[in-house]
């Protein structure tokens, strides 16, 4: 028997630290573990004893890539518990801010993190030498997403204006309107980008999977809605912790989520949202769906990149609509009077559903906090996908196999600092 041990240093271009261990004999996986060694930071512990109004400044520090998601899940939860009625216009401004984050995060992932895989480069910087126009287009689209966030939030990483009750400051109409020409240009480029993504040769992974996302009767979900799955499950935010369950596995500092009733993993993120919310696609997004070659339902995780392109178009169209209709909320913030109880809420972060729960004392002090990020909900499914996928490609070279495993993980756009940075592939062929 030949025993071969190969160390391939790094799955890069994911956010957070981890390693993948595979032991294989012929065409069978003997052992496969996705190990997360992102150091624990204990947010849920040190949130206790802090005031509710400090939470929107604390939780975005969990992830620099989706700070708005963390702020929104917390803020909405407190507002529901405290029965706060936000001033007219706040809801729209929040959706606009979230659109900025979707654009920025999706474009970062599609072009800077994932596209180099498909085109055979180590990084977008390297890719830029051969495809300067593509990289410049991506940067321009990402920039306008960042600018939406900066204009509303003061800065794109850890925005300062979102508060429980509204915003500390609302932008003027003219400030937002100045973004319209660049948003319109970005939208014009999207169908061409969808063509490009549709033309890329991509692996496929036929599988059975339960996809989970928020749904909303009138719009593509971001801040509001209820939970749904492709297996017909429906639940409210208050039921989140009874319908799903977190497991602690020895090889990971991130917890794994499963559906409580069946013990099976689920997949949250753009592909799940798209499958469950196709009725609410905007016109250009719908065109991108077609041109990227997607037809729904589509459970193949390798379709995730195309789903992000569709959602980028949607977020740009929504941003344009919201800016055209914008009336600045005045005042930008409602008065907030805390009360004791339990706040539960979820919103749709770019990489999936982000659930928060806070138990709050009468004076608004946090007694207990629970945060379930999309990446930890997806971890078990990443392992599952790898188990399904790897046996079929074990005859490839170590280098090629590493690249393919990276792509399987990257389909989930894992923000591993919220759960785990690089993935080291440790492959043993027995």
């Amino acid at each position, binding site marked *: 028997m030949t025993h071969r041990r190969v160390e391939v240093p790094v799955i890069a271009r994911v956010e957070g630290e981890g390693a993948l261990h595979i032991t294989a004999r012929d065409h069978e996986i003997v052992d496969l573990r996705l190990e997360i060694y992102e150091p624990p930071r204990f947010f849920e512990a040190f949130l206790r004893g802090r005031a509710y109004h400090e939470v929107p400044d604390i939780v975005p520090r969990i992830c620099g890539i989706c700070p708005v998601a963390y702020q929104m899940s917390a803020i909405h939860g407190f507002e529901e518990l405290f029965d706060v009625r936000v001033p007219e216009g706040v809801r729209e401004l929040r959706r606009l801010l979230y659109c900025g984050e979707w654009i920025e995060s999706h474009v970062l992932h599609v072009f800077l993190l994932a596209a180099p895989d498909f085109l055979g480069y180590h990084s977008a910087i390297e890719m830029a030498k051969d495809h300067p126009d593509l990289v410049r287009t991506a940067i321009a689209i990402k920039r306008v997403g960042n600018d939406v966030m900066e204009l509303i939030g003061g800065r794109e990483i850890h925005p300062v204006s979102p508060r429980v009750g509204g915003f500390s400051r609302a932008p003027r109409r003219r400030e937002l309107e100045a973004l319209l020409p660049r948003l319109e240009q970005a939208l014009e480029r999207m169908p061409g980008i969808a063509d490009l993504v549709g033309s890329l040769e991509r692996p496929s992974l036929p599988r059975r999977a339960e996809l989970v996302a928020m749904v909303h009767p009138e719009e593509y979900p971001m801040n509001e809605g209820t939970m749904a799955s492709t297996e017909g499950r429906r639940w409210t935010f208050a039921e989140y912790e009874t319908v799903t369950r977190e497991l602690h596995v020895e090889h990971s500092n991130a*917890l794994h989520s499963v559906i409580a009733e069946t013990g099976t993993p689920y997949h949250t993120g753009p592909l799940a949202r798209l499958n469950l919310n196709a009725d609410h696609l905007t016109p250009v997004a719908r065109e991108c769906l077609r041109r990227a070659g997607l037809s729904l339902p589509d459970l193949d995780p390798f379709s995730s990149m195309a789903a992000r392109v569709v959602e980028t178009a949607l977020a740009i169209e929504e941003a344009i609509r919201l800016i055209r209709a914008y009336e600045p909320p005045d005042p930008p913030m409602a008065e907030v009077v805390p009360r004791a109880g339990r706040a539960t809420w979820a919103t749709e972060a770019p990489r999936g559903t982000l659930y928060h729960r806070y138990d709050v004392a009468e004076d608004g002090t946090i007694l207990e906090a629970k945060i379930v990020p999309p990446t930890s909900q997806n971890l078990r499914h990443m392992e599952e996908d790898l188990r399904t996928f790897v046996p079929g490609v074990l005859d490839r070279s170590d280098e090629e196999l590493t690249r393919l495993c990276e792509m399987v993980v990257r389909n989930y756009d894992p923000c591993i600092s919220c759960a785990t*940075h690089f993935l080291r592939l440790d492959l043993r062929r027995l």
Partner: protein
Amino acid sequence: MTAPTKPRVAVFKMASCDGCQLQILDAEDALLELAGAIEIVHFAEASSDLRPGPYDITLVEGSISTPEQEAQIREIREASKVLITIGACATAGGIQALRNATGRLEEFVRTVYPTPAYVRSLEDSRPVADYVPVDLELTGCPIDRGELLRAIASLLAGARPRVSTSPVCVECKRRGTVCVVVARGEPCLGPVTRTGCGAICPRFGRGCYGCFGPAQAPGNAEALGRRFIELGLRPKEAADRFRFITGWAPAFREAAARLEEVER
């Protein structure tokens, strides 16, 4: 004749949210230009091509929070000519330093993780400079892109980088921003916090919450805390204003401790 070699730059991450590294990626245009002047040889978030040292300039994000990181930062220091720490985590331990000096790590682990035995963590989350000599610290949560790019440009020109040490208040006066303490009685850390952000919070109608850490000439953080108590905060609330994003920075840590004594 061989072409002059470009300075080799590396980016590493410890315990953090990735936000400061993202500031590098968000400097898209500048990054592509800079890519002509430097060679990024290790940046895991951006590239799968990771090369070993030695490095001319190394940027480190994140705090030292596990035994492995303690060993890793010593290796990184060995391999680096110039070591720059970026962000509140790398320069002050970050918000995760809220666990420091509580004596409650074990209980914290139990609160977050069902199986505490699986988790390895140092008692404290500490700045990089507590373990190895650091050549330049860029504070902020996140760092300011302009400050980072100017620091790298200075190094490339062979000059010593300079960062502003004046407080946020100076920035507000320069910009003509209305003072949130004077106008609205809102607690603001602007008088004692280093500027660098451009005084974003006061411009957005709220008090500064200290992302850039204590200013070099901080005035008196404790006195500011006492002013917060006059404005209506309980001593614990006043202390918590300092015990926050950069709470483990000595000036803020001491102010918080003294204000807590008032509570008792």
